[in-house]
């Protein structure tokens, strides 16, 4: 069974559109993350939720809005897509036993291409 799943795997859309990426984990973890990996493979945290509560919100345009309906799901909605949003977006989860993040489990990624 897939531990962290994302849909869709590929997303091609035009500038100005609104799109969503869904993430689900079946590991029973309390914390979920969204990362963006650019064309140079640099991985940067965007958001983190712990038990449905937003705990990290890095400098990300407010066109990006995460939503966590329950602790097993963390979705990412993007409004008014721009060319610079093209990247691979990864969802991840971890079991936080203290304040420090421990090992994270990553989804397969969603490759977003904005034309």
């Amino acid at each position, binding site marked *: 069974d897939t531990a*962290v799943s994302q849909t869709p795997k590929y997303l091609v859309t035009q500038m100005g559109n609104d799109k969503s990426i869904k993430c689900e984990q079946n590991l029973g973890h309390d914390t979920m*993350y969204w990362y963006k990996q650019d064309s*140079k*493979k*640099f*991985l*940067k*945290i965007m958001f*983190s939720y*712990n038990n449905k509560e937003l*705990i*990290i919100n890095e400098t990300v345009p407010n066109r990006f809005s995460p939503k966590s309906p329950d602790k097993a799901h963390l979705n990412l909605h993007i409004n008014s897509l721009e060319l610079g949003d093209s990247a691979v977006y*990864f969802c*991840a989860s971890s079991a936080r036993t203290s*304040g*420090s*993040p*421990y*090992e*994270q*489990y*990553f*989804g*397969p*990624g969603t490759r977003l291409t904005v034309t």
Partner: protein
Amino acid sequence: SQQGEEDPQALSIQEGENATMNCSYKTSINNLQWYRQNSGRGLVHLILIRSNEREKHSGRLRVTLDTSKKSSSLLITASRAADTASYFCAWAQTGANNLFFGTGTRLTVIP
């Protein structure tokens, strides 16, 4: 910048050789982790070393941590073609809730 660096950026070796990758970071940390990313896939956790540890082993992997130099290294012994991937270090900065990732090393193991 909280971004660290890894070197080399790319490494190409023959099967059976050892591969060493280095990671440098800039802050105090609670732990440091190494991840592997195969082409077109998500990251897979390999090993975690705590700030009070200096060396850790897992199978063919050996990780060292020098907090005084703010650096870590990952050694893969007796490499295999299946080890071909990008390797990332990630550190848990003291007081922060998330990991910060290095720039990655692209390893190619030639059969």
